[in-house]
């Protein structure tokens, strides 16, 4: 075999089945499992209009929370039979209440920032994954605010690391500065609360797992420290005291998100999880721990939605990975550790939609793309994502 191509060639297993077949197999596996275990039914068997509530009054009250189940989880550690033990909350609690999309593909660049930016714009962005640059195309937050004339306080992003600080708004000329979402970087916030050594918070300040020593300079519309008190009604001391009780950066993110829901009740809230990406360190046990924690945090968020009067009954929550990770059998990768091969396992994921206007216990098989999320949110809220390359998912029309 050519040395030049050792790193590019598929394994025998991969060669025997095309990428499309592998993607379909992953989708079928999720579907059969959910039908069998969670008692869900196939969406194709349903007819009639979407239950999504129409009308201006309903739209004004409508709230949407998007949670990216990041960064990068594979089927075999989640919805495949051998992975189910890692996601008991998704399977036993959330899935039966959800519409579950078994076949979501991401055809873009598989870096966490660029992929999440693509999720927010509905366009496969091509920006440098490790640069602090805004997306090239308008974000969902800009469409939402401009078309619906919503104030800045109505949409927020809670993101894991400094690299995500420009995700709230694009550099599109159609939208000016300050027309997107405010981005909160909880780790940055925690760093800012302390000067000098922070031994109590080391475990919450883990860095970008893929390039651990790279911390871009902040710029853009990120949350300022003094706003802890003015917006979140949280003193620096209380914030630090609570942070000491947490074990991971994503727990800190969820804590801030819950605080935002309590104080600002934004209509469009985007939360990006990232603990799972510890897989880049090559430690499988830490990767699985990250998945279990993210599973727990998703359920915790959903319970918060149910218990908050501003959200209960009128909120749709979407949970989806930004992408998967490399297959064990792709010779170009090293299994779970990375997402570099672009194989079917790393591109094929799922999406769960819960709550207002969503049929419960339904499994949808039809392939959709991750960039379809933005136009679907447009359909739910009533804004027009003019530059999105995705198509609204018909179940939400």
């Amino acid at each position, binding site marked *: *075999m*050519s*040395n*030049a*191509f*050792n790193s*590019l*060639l*598929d*394994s*025998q297993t991969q*060669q025997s089945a095309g*990428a499309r077949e592998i993607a379909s197999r992953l989708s079928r596996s999720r579907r059969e499992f959910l039908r069998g275990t969670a008692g869900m039914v196939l969406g194709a068997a349903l007819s009639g209009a979407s239950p999504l509530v129409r009308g201006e009054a309903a739209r004004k009250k409508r709230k949407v929370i998007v949670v990216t189940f990041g960064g990068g989880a594979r089927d075999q550690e989640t919805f495949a039979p*051998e992975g189910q033990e890692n996601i008991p909350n998704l399977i036993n609690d959330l899935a039966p209440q959800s519409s579950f999309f078994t076949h979501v593909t991401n*055809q873009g*660049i*598989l870096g966490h920032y660029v992929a999440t930016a693509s999720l927010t714009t509905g366009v*496969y962005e*091509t920006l440098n994954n*490790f*640069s602090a640059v805004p997306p090239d195309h308008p974000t969902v937050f800009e469409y939402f605010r401009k078309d619906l004339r919503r104030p800045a306080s109505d949409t927020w992003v809670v993101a894991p690391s400094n690299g995500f600080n420009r995700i709230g708004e694009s550099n599109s000329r159609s939208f000016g500065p300050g027309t997107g979402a405010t981005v909160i970087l909880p780790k940055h916030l925690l760093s800012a609360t302390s000067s000098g050594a922070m031994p109590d918070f*080391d*475990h919450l*300040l*883990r*860095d*970008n*797992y*893929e*390039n*651990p*020593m*790279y911390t871009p300079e902040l710029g853009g519309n990120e949350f300022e420290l003094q706003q802890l008190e003015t917006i979140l009604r949280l003193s620096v001391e209380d914030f630090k005291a609570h942070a000491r009780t947490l074990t991971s950066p994503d727990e800190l993110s969820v804590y801030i998100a819950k605080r935002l829901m309590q104080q600002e009740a934004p209509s469009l809230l985007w939360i990006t999880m990232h603990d799972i990406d*510890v897989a*880049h*360190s*090559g*430690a*499988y*046990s*830490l990767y*699985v721990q990250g998945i279990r924690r993210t599973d727990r945090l998703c359920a915790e968020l959903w319970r918060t939605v149910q218990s908050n009067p501003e959200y209960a009954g009128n909120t749709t929550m979407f949970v989806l990975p930004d992408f998967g990770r490399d297959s*064990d*059998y792709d*010779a*170009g990768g*090293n*299994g*779970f*550790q*990375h997402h570099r*091969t*672009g194989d079917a396992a790393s591109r094929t994921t799922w999406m769960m939609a819960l709550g207002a206007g969503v049929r419960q216990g339904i499994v949808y098989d039809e392939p959709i793309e991750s960039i379809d999320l933005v136009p679907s949110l447009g359909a739910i809220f009533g804004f027009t994502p003019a530059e999105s390359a995705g198509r609204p998912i018909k179940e939400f029309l």
Partner: protein
Amino acid sequence: MQPRDLKPEQFSSYPPEAGRLVVAHLDALRELPISILPSMLREAIDYDYKFPVERAAIESEFARLSEISSAERRDWFKDFERFSISPRLESFDWVGQPAQFTEQLSAYLWSTHQLDAYRNAAIAYGNRLQSMLRPDALPVPRLGIAVIGQGVVSYDALLFKNLRPHGTYFNRIAPENGLEMILDAAAQRARNHPVRYGHWYIDGGEEASHDSLLTCLSYKTIEPLRNSLLRSMQAEIARPGMGPEELRTYLARLTPSDLGMNPSNDVVLSRFQVKVLTEGSGTQIFSTTFAQWASREALRRAQPITLIARFAPRQRQRPMNELLSENHSGMQLDPVGSLVDADMAAYYHWINQQRLAGADRSSFLVWFEGHSQALVISPTLPRSTTSTSALNLSQLIGLALS
């Protein structure tokens, strides 16, 4: 610059044997597309520091490319002619820095949505080449052994979950002197079938006493190298303008002497050690990742006929910046987490072994060190089966190879 413009003197900066090899086949290489030739040069430029199996593969590939006609070469590489390459890449010094070029090419292919098509073209070329090159017969069937769980007193969860469908699980293995028996068996194979870089022992902790015929690499032994690398990385990170791509380029250029290694050491093995640390994500901080990645790379590159990978407890997770610092004071270990890591690594060890020639005759053994659980995959043992036979490790290896 295009491949057709290549001249012999452009390879004068290559290591001597690499330069001679490329120039000897320059007529054929000039006819290859720019989208593929730098990938070949990336391998060729390190020819002087490669393992014998790798050298033979490059020689065979280049010889084959020179043997075929121009028309055949056009046919072989027609898919690669279709890829667009940016002017910036075309003007890059891809002869002098082929590795950096291919990294940038990869990023360009991602951003222009050409990566999948490129993968397909690469697979087709690799398959075509492979079908024409016949690897030498192995002197003895390959044997892989993973020793996992050092320091774990008890573990109740299921072990070898991914491997069980492929082999026989043993639950009455006598653990006494198990590691010695494994190393003795490897030494015996090395004596009976002397192949340079053919018999390896990789240890994620401190290496046990072993025969000098085994090519050995251990986390403990390379500690000075790791510390030197971490110091070097910290210094580079602090430089203005340093970003992830620049850091990657810097790491790719590091040589053993840059990191203070003795120049009289085995140059091939020294390079291998540096590459394990500079190319393997996490190898600098977690011993389990080091052992897994070193095993993978040894199998991919040296293709040993015997490879023992022993895993030791890694340090507990801490903030990444702290893990990457040189300060190991107060380091706590995570034996159970390390067992989970190593269990998965054993699965990857087997997968990587099965990618090599002679897979249908190869055997693989994984043992929970100090305990009675083991699993063997071999052509002669049933799959998805449990055996209650009482055996020691020596007998188990004998069974695996029978």
